[in-house]
């Protein structure tokens, strides 16, 4: 009996692995293996015209935060890189906070609509989410540039006489990222609120709780997994943003993504580009692991 059961288990296992094999092979060759190669490349020496020379070197990693003096070979802090790393982290945090502050009420608004109209509101959030990121970034550019809509309207109405310079700044990148990643915050928040039992609110008010304390002590703890998921989903792409800083930040407001791209373009330092890219992936992975752990613990409770 036990042997027959074991036979069945072995057969389903074999069948399921066979069914998954083609996709796994493709992903191993297009995602896993290339990533391992990036890791290897980060320990090689940059070639003169891009690519690499097969000679071991830790310069790719040292170059992440340090710079070697051209004349006396001494190491000093790579201020340019540190500024970019700091800006990336700062802007990504700010994007997460802004999208949360606006996204929480928005998700709540959708979750408290009547059952019938809810899908429509949700659909309205989803359309911008699936709209080409480039188009959305262009649209923001169109709003805030010197000859853009906002400045034109303000000048026409005579409120200002000189255009307000908004574009090509940290603020412009922040606006663009907040705009682009807003749906990523709202959707998981909504998913958590949708499951929220609204009777808990009645219970809270019955016990003379104020709106603020109901919000803080009943809603917040229950929807916390959604909050965490939303924050991660916004923070990760924000940290690796490439298009938004390029279109809205101009040449001077670079982020990690642009720094990486530069190493493969005119920078011609593939190992450095590889090491920055791996750093980015590791940060992402750690953030994900924390979330999965947290979420797991919460379901266990």
């Amino acid at each position, binding site marked *: 009996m036990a042997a027959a059961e074991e036979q069945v288990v072995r057969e389903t296992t074999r*069948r399921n692995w066979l069914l998954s094999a083609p996709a796994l092979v493709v*992903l*191993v060759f297009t995602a896993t293996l290339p990533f391992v190669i990036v890791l290897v490349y980060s320990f090689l020496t940059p070639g003169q015209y891009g690519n690499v020379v097969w000679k071991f070197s830790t310069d790719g990693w040292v170059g992440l935060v340090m710079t070697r003096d051209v004349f006396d070979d001494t190491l000093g802090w790579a201020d340019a890189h540190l500024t970019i790393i700091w800006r990336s982290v700062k802007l990504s945090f700010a994007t997460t906070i802004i999208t949360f502050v606006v996204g929480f009420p928005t998700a709540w608004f959708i979750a408290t609509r009547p059952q019938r109209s809810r899908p429509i509101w949700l659909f309205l959030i989803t*359309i911008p989410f699936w709209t*080409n990121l480039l*188009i*959305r970034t262009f649209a923001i550019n169109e709003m805030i540039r010197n000859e853009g809509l906002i400045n034109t309207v303000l000048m026409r109405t005579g409120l200002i006489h000189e255009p307000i310079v908004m574009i090509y700044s940290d603020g412009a990148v922040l606006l663009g990222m907040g*705009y682009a990643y807003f749906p990523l915050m709202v959707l998981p928040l909504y998913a958590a609120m949708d499951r929220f039992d609204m009777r808990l609110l009645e219970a809270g008010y019955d016990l003379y709780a104020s709106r603020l304390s109901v919000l803080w002590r009943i809603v917040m703890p229950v929807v916390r997994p959604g909050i965490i998921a939303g924050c991660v989903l916004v923070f990760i792409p924000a940290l690796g943003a490439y298009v938004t800083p390029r*279109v809205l930040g101009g040449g001077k407001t670079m982020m990690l993504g642009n720094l990486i791209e530069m190493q493969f373009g005119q920078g011609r330092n593939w190992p450095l580009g590889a090491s920055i*890219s791996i750093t980015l992936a590791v940060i992402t992975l750690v953030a994900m692991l924390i979330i999965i752990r947290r979420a797991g613990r919460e379901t266990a409770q």
Partner: protein
Amino acid sequence: MKRFSVTTMPGFALIAICAFAVLYLPILTIATFSFNAGKAISDWQGFSFRWYEIAWANTEVQGAAIRSLIIASWATLISVLLATPVALATTRTAKFPGRTFIYMMINQTLVVPEIVPAVALLIFFAAIKIQTGYQGLGYLILAHVMWCIPLAYLPIRARLEGMDLSLENAAADLYASRWQTLWRITLPLLMPGIIAGAMLCFITSLDTVVITEFVKSGGQDTLATYMLGQFRRGLTPEINAISTVLLALTVVLLTGFFLLTRKRD
């Protein structure tokens, strides 16, 4: 006096309505001014299809559009063909050794910023390009497949999880072979999930700009990378026109997606 509603939070509705307005104002502006007869973005000079005609006649745009469609079609087809069996293998089955591993492998690209796989493929394909001499669209298709597989997998899996095994069991009781059951019961029932997954793949492939920018060889611009390249010379109503067409395509595909995945009451 207004009745006290437990679910109302002061100011929340106002913030939400403003958020929706801010979300749509920029996209609608772009769409509106793509029909502007004049060149300026914020100076309306009458309705015209002028910029659509200019974009349509532009051979570079034509080439990029055709390339985008070829890549998106192949990437969608391959992703769905690869993801469907995985979905069948990982749902409605007893836990088997390696299931979590397969799940993690399939979704590995879902959580990293696009620039990370873009760099990895740039390096990897650069080496292969030198070794084999092949420079074609295959690299871009493969890169998009990598990026699209989890997006095909998730809706198909969701659909499968909502299907119970009773019809399949009934078919087996009536001596249908495994293949007959698959072809005549499981796949037809699964079709809405497969089409939904295909739509997400198609949209994603059209959108993907960073991976395409890194992987493409010379002269392989897609619409997305063409638009990014043109942007250096500033936004033109022509780009607005292309954007609006892509936007319309996204709305059509998404509407289809929602109608397909909607839960019937």
